[in-house]
């Protein structure tokens, strides 16, 4: 397991269990921090859990996580966030008692910069990028579910991430909205932000990612070129079924 010189996120032998339930079963996973990677897999495969482990919200039961040659297995989430490793939550967790702007601002001022003016700009910028400017002064508990998901994204963006973990932020969008989202993510990717995106709407995902991972029962069952992964027999069996929703 020798370290490579360029910037890289590397997870080796990740196990995670909740009591008796074994959720992650030896995940090995490496990515360049500028990659855009998609993760698919049946419900309950452990995708979100993997994300939690990588972002530091949960500690792995076993395994090692290395970012840029540095062991971050035991680094708490808040420090990973400051190092540029940020996630969104599948079930949104807004700060419901403060406004949308404040939600995003608190992220900017704590993870990205100490300068207030700069943080204002960063916050406004990410809110704008997520198309929520008109909601900026609304209290976060008065916005609907999809806006909450957008808020998750805006908040994560305001931390000026280097590596962004997205957990099902495209669900429930109309097609036009989804396409807009794709544009947003692509632009992030072009800026050199690494993306790990969990999504069930495969055709949207495939517009963004260069490489795809499919998980099942806490293991990676296929990874690499998206087209190849999607036509993998194991993937079709575990994930796609006879679905019409194939690569378009």
């Amino acid at each position, binding site marked *: 397991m020798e370290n490579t010189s360029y910037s890289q996120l590397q997870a080796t032998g990740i196990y995670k269990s909740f009591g008796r339930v074994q959720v992650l079963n030896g995940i090995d996973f490496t990515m360049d921090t500028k990659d855009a990677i998609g993760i698919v897999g049946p419900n309950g495969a452990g995708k979100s859990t993997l994300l939690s482990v990588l972002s530091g919200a949960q500690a792995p039961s076993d395994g090692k996580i290395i970012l840029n040659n540095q062991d971050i297995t035991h680094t708490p989430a808040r420090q990973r966030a400051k190092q540029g490793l940020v996630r969104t939550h599948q079930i949104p967790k807004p*700060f419901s*008692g403060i406004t949308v702007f404040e939600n995003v601002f608190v992220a900017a001022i704590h993870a990205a910069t100490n300068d207030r003016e700069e943080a204002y700009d960063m916050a406004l910028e990410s809110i704008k990028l997520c198309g929520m400017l008109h909601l900026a002064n609304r209290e976060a508990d008065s916005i609907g579910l999809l806006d909450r998901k957008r808020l998750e994204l805006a908040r994560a963006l305001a931390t000026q991430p280097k590596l962004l973990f997205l957990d099902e932020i495209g669900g429930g969008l109309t097609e036009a909205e989804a396409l807009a989202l794709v544009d947003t993510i692509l632009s992030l990717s072009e800026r050199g932000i690494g993306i790990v995106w969990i999504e069930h709407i495969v055709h949207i995902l495939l517009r963004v990612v260069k490489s795809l991972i499919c998980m099942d029962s806490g293991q990676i069952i296929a990874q690499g070129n998206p087209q190849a992964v999607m036509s993998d027999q194991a993937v079709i069996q575990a994930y796609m079924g006879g679905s019409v929703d194939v690569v378009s």
Partner: protein
Amino acid sequence: MKIKRSNAYSMATVIGASLLFVALVSAAFVASDNVLERLTVLFVYVILAAMWNTLAGFGGLVSIGQQLFFGLGAYATIRLADFGIPPFVAVLMAALLVGLLSWPISKFMLHLKAAEFGIGMWVLASVGHLLVNLDPLIQGETGTSLISLNVYQIETRRVLIYLAALISMVGLLIGLFYLLRSKAGIAMQAIRDNEEAADSIGVDAQTVKKWFFIFAAFGTALAGALWLAQASSFQPKTYFSVQWTAYMIFMVLVGGIGRFEGAILGALLFFAVETWFAATGVWYLVGLGAVAVLCSLFLPKGLWGAIESRLGLRLIPVGYQVTDETLKSHKP
């Protein structure tokens, strides 16, 4: 300007508050004894309400055990005075000591969630009380008195305590104001709403909570020490009584929880109610309880919350408002 943090009202508030402060300072030399003594009590109430609001309103940490710090503040004052430290120095030192003590306490207590925190604090207050009872100087519930204050002439003493309370209150309120407007202030509210999410965006929840906790402990201890200074008697049961927290809850609930102005308004109201109705005894207490219940049910944001949403009045803003121009300028 992209973000507004103050408004026309808040400018007026600053001026008004400064004038009021000057007036209150000069009152020390002209007002009647009774007025000075009552105002001292009011200042202590304002401190108590503001400190509880700091924890519960902005941090979601509902403590039913703030009497711990109130009592310890008074106790430490007695102890220090017994060592021969001049009483007013002892008051400040006591508050600082209790603030210091609250740091290790915070290490444990802040890991607790919601109700466990609240009740845990209550139990801790009870432990503090029982431990203070073991001190031979205090002689258990017998207590003792801060007789070293008797060296001052009654007039001097009254004025000194009044000024000490006034300055403490103003200092703590200003401190609180800056704390809330700082980056820790907004972080505290984020933690209140969802600690895990706050953690995921780089907020150091334990540290932020710790500072709020220590600040509130310090302020509450100062209030306890001041109360002792103006009452002289120290009986542990009195100072470690949950009733102090009940008063704090009442003031904050009625005034407006999570609102800077609310705590102050609540303290004023409580003070007024106490002044006028306390003599009615049982019915006064029944009334206090009933008003607290009604307020929490029908005015969950308190009187100030109602005023704020009715009139759009924000005297002491601690939040962030994106200006209309910014909103417009970003629209295509």
